């Protein structure tokens, strides 16, 4: 199971099926949360089949985790969420980043 230190995280990628709708929405809410928590990291969005090769953490819905795993870089940490708004695992990701914890795939 992959894990990464918060300090090493440079790029987070939100992945959804088309890379146009829900991933963009969740990305924007994550950017807001990161800003609020004072976390400086690049957050992008993409289709689950075209995750950028330099992604450190892939964030996707549970229903797309299988596809995302195949296209994600080998060492990337995969964070899955269930709810599109205020999902605990997204809040936890921001908290871990802010506190400098180790982040592990879910």
């Amino acid at each position, binding site marked *: *199971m992959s*894990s990464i230190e918060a300090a090493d995280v440079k790029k987070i990628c939100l992945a*959804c*099926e*088309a*890379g*146009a*709708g*829900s991933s963009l*929405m969740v990305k924007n809410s994550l950017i807001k949360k990161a800003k609020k928590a004072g976390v400086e990291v690049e957050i992008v969005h993409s*289709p*689950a*089949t*075209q995750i950028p090769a330099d992604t450190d953490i892939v964030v996707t*819905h*549970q*229903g*797309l985790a*299988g*596809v995302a795993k*195949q296209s994600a870089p080998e060492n990337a940490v995969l*964070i*899955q*969420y*269930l*709810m*599109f*708004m*205020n*999902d*605990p*695992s997204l809040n*936890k990701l921001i908290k*871990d980043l802010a506190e400098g*914890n*180790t*982040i*592990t795939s*879910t």
Partner: protein
Amino acid sequence: MREFIQRVGGAASGMVIPNIGAFIAWGLITSLYIGPGWAPNEDLSSMVGPMIVNLLPLLLGYTGGKMIHGHRGGVIGAVVTMAAIVGTSSPQFLGAMLVGPGAAWVLKQLDTRARDSVPEGFEMLYDNFSSGILGWILAVVVYRGLSPILQAITDGLGNFAASMVDNGLVPLADIPIEVAKVLFLNNAVNQGVLTPLGVADAAESGKSIFFLLETNPGPGLGLLLAYWVAGTGMWKQSAPGSIIIHFFGGIHEIYFPYVLGHPIMILAMWAGGISADLWFQVTNAGLVGPPSPGSIFAYIAMLPRDGAANVLIGVAIGAVAAAVVGTILLRVRPIKETDAGVDEAIDTSIPGVDV
């Protein structure tokens, strides 16, 4: 299997979604200027045919090629798509989605093998003529070899779709559609299958029921209303915000967890979807172009002059049916915290705990 469909569907929607603006422009021009439109105009309506036959497939072919091999792939994808367009007599969305990426793949194979051995100073000559000559060859191959097959496939799909409409079977299509949606196959189903069918259908009759089947925001609205009324905990609290994003923003994904977390709620989606589709079928309702994203605002923009009210009534029927059935289901089978999957999500996200 599901991942395979998600991958294929992802490729199809990856070609369609970046070009939705052109589809919407085509839909608006069609709804305004054709004979039965809002503001009939013979001169301006002459754009409708060339746009659907040439422009839209070329955009798909270009985008499909670009996905495989950058701009060079896009160019050869568009060239070879042209062969599929003139080699057949129906709008070639399927053909474009096959030959666009296919041609780019062939060029990519050639480039990876040949490019290193191009002498200094001849790069531009190689780039231009490899793409041009390969485009010529592949265009002839597609025109002679593939276009009869493409014609047969599009005819077959078109006849199948038409016979579903003629025999009143469209509402049955809702059963697999609702399931596919919540499994995140929504774009695969809509952009990959229903939008091409709808565009071909609307080109003939000015509107199509196929645009309404996956995109109807009514049933999802009803489901979320049911959670707002009869749900508990965070499901209830999050429902109003989700309604705004779903119904007005058109991001249907927002309601999928409310079905995935309590699978019996698929019955509410079927109730809403099937009753709305029955209404659409009986009233011969349709939209003039693809409503994307599936927001009520996109619906309003794509309304035909003839039968506009029927579309909106169908959205309302879907919402009411899903809300009623959903509320009953939530009362009879309340959502348990263990059903929610939310607790699980919290547990599994604790670092170092393997689940």
